[in-house]
């Protein structure tokens, strides 16, 4: 009898769960968020949400365009603004499907604290989302740009970032997890790749342009393309992919076009070591090792000779060093330790770090840095000599 009652109670409880999870949401009552943007406007926090079309791609084959839907709301806080969207939008946005977070420059220059709290506390915002910063435009405008063949600009940005990393190798993708980790760790400052809207043949397109540099809770400046390339060369993790152009004349910026040679970087890695001098000053010595292939040459000169290969290796090493130094000088100018040297010192010389920590940005700006780069050519792909026209 008692067993029967107990069994009955269990059955009753199991029956109550047949409806599904406690706070389930039906698919036709939701809509996927592909990305969202955060901005500030006259003290108000603005959130823009790019919504995937609930009905999918319209008829008309691969040429059919999906209408991009961007919802924008503002309030005193981002969570509040996000919830206000539900006041005029009939479906529940599924935030966990979002792939990118786009910040406005105004927000980055103002204060990141509220934004960081919002994206760290909210369980629907996934740490693997990629971060971008808009340059000279707002996240809302970026999300409204058409990016064929991709239907949604937030997804397109992620693919652009991943694609350029293995091909051009200029910018490094930054995930929310990485940004958050650097944001709270002493001795290292975070960066975010920037995106801008440019006109091409009368059409607005998105373009990755530079890297935003932070110091504490604010953005303090940007790296150019060349400096961003240098930043990628300076990270301790192994990098794969990327191109670098050298000029046989030795002048990369304004040397003759006919002497341009493009070198591919298959992999590169930087090792930074702090060195204490007898007078108490500190030198950061950076060793960059890279290897790659000869990728393109405009000169008809045969570069695949022992002497020329050594010359090319030297020129490429010099170019790598130049880009790395350009990045270091810019970071020092901005007093932002984006390389994590402070963090490295805190691990290797904790006593010294205790003295330096309080005034680290100023100390970093005056640090003496020595960069050595060594590039080795491995292969030349399908031809060994330049194509010669014979009459």
């Amino acid at each position, binding site marked *: 009898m008692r067993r029967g009652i107990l069994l009955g109670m269990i059955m009753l*409880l199991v029956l109550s769960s047949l409806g599904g999870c406690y*706070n389930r949401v039906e698919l036709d009552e939701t809509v996927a968020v592909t990305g969202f943007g955060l901005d500030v406007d006259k003290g108000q926090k603005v959130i823009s949400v790019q919504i995937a079309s609930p009905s999918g791609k319209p008829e008309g084959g691969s040429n059919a365009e999906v209408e991009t839907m961007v919802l924008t709301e503002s309030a005193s806080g981002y969570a509040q603004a996000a919830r206000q969207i539900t006041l005029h939008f009939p479906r529940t946005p599924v935030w966990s499907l979002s792939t990118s977070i786009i910040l406005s420059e105004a927000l980055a220059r103002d204060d990141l604290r509220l934004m960081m709290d919002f994206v760290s506390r909210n*369980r629907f915002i996934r740490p*693997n989302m990629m971060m971008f910063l808009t340059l000279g435009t707002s996240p809302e405008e970026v999300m409204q740009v058409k990016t064929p063949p991709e239907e949604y600009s937030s997804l397109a940005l992620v693919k652009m970032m991943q694609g350029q990393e293995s091909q051009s190798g200029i910018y490094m993708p930054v*995930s929310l*997890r990485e940004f958050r980790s650097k944001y709270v*760790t002493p001795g290292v400052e975070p960066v975010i790749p920037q995106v801008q809207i440019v006109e091409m043949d009368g059409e607005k397109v998105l373009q990755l342009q530079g890297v935003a540099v932070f110091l504490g809770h604010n953005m303090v400046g940007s790296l150019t393309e060349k400096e961003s390339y240098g930043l990628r060369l300076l990270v301790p*993790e192994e990098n794969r992919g990327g191109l670098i152009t050298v000029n046989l004349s030795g002048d990369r910026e304004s040397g003759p076009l006919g002497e341009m040679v493009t070198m591919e970087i298959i992999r590169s890695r930087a090792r930074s070591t702090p060195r204490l001098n007898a007078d108490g000053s500190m030198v950061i010595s950076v060793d960059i090792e890279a290897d790659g292939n000869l990728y393109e040459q405009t000169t008809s000169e045969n570069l695949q000779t022992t002497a020329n290969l050594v010359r090319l290796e030297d020129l490429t090493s010099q170019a790598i060093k130049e880009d790395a130094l350009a990045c270091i000088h810019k970071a020092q100018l901005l007093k932002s330790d984006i390389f994590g040297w402070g963090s*490295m010192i805190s691990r290797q010389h904790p*006593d010294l770090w205790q003295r330096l920590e309080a005034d680290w940005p100023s100390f970093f700006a005056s640090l003496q840095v020595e960069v050595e780069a060594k590039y080795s050519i491995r292969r030349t792909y399908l031809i060994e000599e330049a194509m010669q026209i014979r009459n």
Partner: protein
Amino acid sequence: MARLTNIQLFCILLVTLAVTPYQVMAKMLAMILAQHGWMAILGSVLPGLLLVWIYYYLLTNSSRPFPGMLEEHLGPVLGKIIGFVYIWAFFLVVVMSLVLFANFFLSNVLPGMPISILLIFIILPAFYALRTGLEATARVVELIVLTAYPLAMLLLLFGLGPETDWSRLLPLGHFDMAALGNGVWLVSSYISLMVVVLTLGPFCHQPRLLWRWMLAVFGMFLFSTLAAVIIPIVAYGPVLTSIQTFPIFNIARATDVANFIHNIEIIMVSVVMPGVFSILAIFWFVTCYSAQQVFGLQDYRILVGPTAIMAGVSAVLLVPNIHFLYIMLQQIFPWIFIILFAILPAFMVPVIWLKLRRRQDSDSKKKAAPPK
């Protein structure tokens, strides 16, 4: 009398030791010791081994399971009074497990779910297991450990993604000794949850071999807790680990294996859930069994119903918010555990030793005395 195999006891001890630290130890140690949190675990090896020896000594020199052994060694009055205190201490662990899991679940998975419904869903299976008996519970725990423990470790391993930086554990040896002592004390307090062996050990087939299983459990605990403490630090760094409510859950959230395995936090919850069931069922059994021993009841099962209601109500009332939960976990529970589960059993060791010594002396005197 119910009988447990040695492997069942091993599984029971492993869940009682490993489940709570798996959920919260990373955060607590990161708050105390930053990147040196793992050193506290290594530092707790000696206290842990000492506890294993104390429990084994008590087991091999007692004829009754805990808390009956209190009456055996300290006399019926004092034994019953202390035994009564232990009922509440074991009950506190039951409530702690409930509260911890409720907060874990409501913070990360379903914040809108009423806590009462969640508690019913956790308590009900444990209630049924206890009503069925210790042997059935032990069999379920055995299955849970064999399936969930490797999966729990695998989920941690998945957390070692491309952003893992082992240098986040540096600098070594640059820490405050008081903080290390605090960390060792904290870890040792959770090791003392092995005290259930005093109640369950006598149910074992081969109590004389228990030391091997206890050592094996301790080794497994060290391994899993080290992994649970180190992986969040190398993945996030000590600062972020210390500010997250449940760093282990965030490891699962951030897991992305080759852009193929991700969004696995629900698997993490499904691993933690049976673990919580196990620790709940075991300590609940020990609570009821202790009450049976202290009050001289015929069967512990009649206490399962009332204690279920008490546990549910206490879980709602005990901790008003997650901030207070961590205060309890870090500052209040460890004191209770250390005093009742480590110091008091340790105090019993010399008592038993002296009693044995006296008995041996009187035995030898009897032998030496000429027959009348």
